């Protein structure tokens, strides 16, 4: 099958099935034309590393000429005037962007239900949530709409939907991938990363988008990420609350490996990750959204957004006003440092850490759950964001036919080690 034929097929699939799944918000009308150009390069032997791959982008990453709305009425008609650094890199390597993915509004959510344009359904189990906030990205991959998707992960927003949809999702180390052009949720925690059906495609994409970028001063130079043969490794298992059935599945999966030592580890404050995370997110989100005043583009955010976005804005405003006490934001920043140090200490004893991606099975779409319950979805993913380390979710198996993810965490900037274990488990 030629590349344009493949693209045509996937566009037809989106047209047919997206009405039900609601994973894609906008399709690139130039996709077929661009596919023909890439095909010419493939035939001439001059194509880039992503030639032949179709990609869907979370709707909070600026992609020139496409509507980038963050699944919010605030930016409903906002056409992006420039490419984020990750998009420029994808285009340079001849990746084809098929469209923009649905998501939780402004990445505020863990279920895929807070989009102003309707919830995304889980392609594996349509009655269940797909997870969030990169709901449309993970669902697009699971539904076969594209080969690879990009998401953003502030507290688990790539890994959580990857787990629920039975695909692979990567949160890179803080500083590995440029966030220039990402409409931020929380700048001190956000990372952009890939989602795909297999590890190789996520590795391919991560190698394309990583690297230092002058437009994002938090980025570093990095070496190519490779899968290596691990001789003998020690895997740490932290004590963290999760559904016992999920823990059993994870441990069973680890038993399939040879030459590994499993060690229980102590991360004394890991169970305070959620409490550390939200004060940071509320304040940084409040600050980051002040530009959405409706004067130069879009609408005023407080007048157009949904409940969860408003909660974070109002909470962030409240904290900012009370900040002279140093009670909230600075306290949370200091707690972040403590958790980060605990991980550094743990990685002196073990090579990698394995735990469930999500501590519970996904709820039914539309089922009412409390704010606290929703926030608790991310108890096992947030620690990696606070510690600024890489983490990935790979499928571990099924419980009641529902996909469950196994999460691997590695020391900062040691993605190769993480991918190497993932390949052993694939």
């Amino acid at each position, binding site marked *: 099958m030629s590349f344009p034929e493949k693209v045509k097929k996937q566009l037809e699939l989106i047209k047919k099935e997206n009405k039900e799944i609601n994973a894609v918000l906008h399709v690139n009308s130039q996709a077929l034309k661009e596919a023909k150009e890439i095909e010419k390069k493939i035939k001439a032997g001059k194509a880039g590393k992503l030639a032949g791959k179709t990609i869907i982008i979370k709707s909070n990453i600026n992609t020139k000429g496409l509507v980038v709305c963050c699944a919010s009425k605030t930016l409903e008609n906002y056409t992006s005037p420039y490419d984020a650094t990750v998009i420029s890199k994808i285009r340079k390597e001849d990746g084809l962007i098929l469209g923009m993915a649905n998501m939780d509004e402004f990445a505020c959510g863990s279920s895929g239900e807070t989009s102003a344009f309707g919830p995304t359904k889980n392609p594996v189990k349509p009655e269940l949530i797909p997870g969030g906030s990169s709901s449309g990205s993970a669902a697009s991959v699971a539904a076969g709409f594209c080969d690879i998707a990009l998401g953003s992960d502030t507290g688990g927003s790539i890994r959580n939907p990857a787990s629920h949809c039975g695909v692979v999702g990567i949160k890179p180390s803080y500083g590995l991938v440029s966030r220039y052009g990402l409409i931020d949720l929380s700048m001190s925690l956000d990372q952009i990363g890939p989602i795909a059906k297999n590890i190789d495609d996520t590795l391919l994409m991560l190698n394309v988008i990583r690297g230092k970028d002058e437009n994002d001063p938090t980025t570093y130079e990095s070496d190519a990420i490779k899968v290596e043969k691990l001789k003998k490794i020690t895997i740490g298992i932290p004590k963290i609350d999760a559904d016992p059935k999920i823990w059993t599945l994870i441990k069973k999966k680890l038993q399939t490996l040879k030459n590994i030592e499993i060690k229980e580890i102590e991360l004394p404050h890991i169970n305070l990750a959620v409490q*550390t995370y*939200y004060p940071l997110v509320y304040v940084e989100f409040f600050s980051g959204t002040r530009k959405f005043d409706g004067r130069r583009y879009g609408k005023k955010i407080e007048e157009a957004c949904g409940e969860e976005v408003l909660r974070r804005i109002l909470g962030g405003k409240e904290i900012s006003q009370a900040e002279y006490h140093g009670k909230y934001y600075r306290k949370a920043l200091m707690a972040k440092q403590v958790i980060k140090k605990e991980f550094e200490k743990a990685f002196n004893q073990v090579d990698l850490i394995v735990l469930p991606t999500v501590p519970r099975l996904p709820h039914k779409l539309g089922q009412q759950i409390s704010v606290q319950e929703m926030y608790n979805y991310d108890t096992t993913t947030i620690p990696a964001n606070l510690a600024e380390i890489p983490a990935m979710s790979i499928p571990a198996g099924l419980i009641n036919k529902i996909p469950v993810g196994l999460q691997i965490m590695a020391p900062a900037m040691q993605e190769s080690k993480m991918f190497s274990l993932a390949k052993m488990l694939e």
Partner: protein
Amino acid sequence: MDEGKIKQQAKDIIDNFVSALEKIETTEQLVERKEDRRHENIPREADPDFHKIMFENAPNKKGDCILAEKGKWTK
């Protein structure tokens, strides 16, 4: 949406979270990064499409200006 209720809920959540953090013993550390600063002196090429698209996005325009001020300035 009841804005007052949401605001109170947000405050309660944060108070609850921060009281849990009181248990953590911490000392403040400041990190100042001197390297990796942006080179503002290197000129960038302007993209003519940027101007065109941003003007299409803007709700209020006058000639070659986007009217982003509030109140009487817009009149």
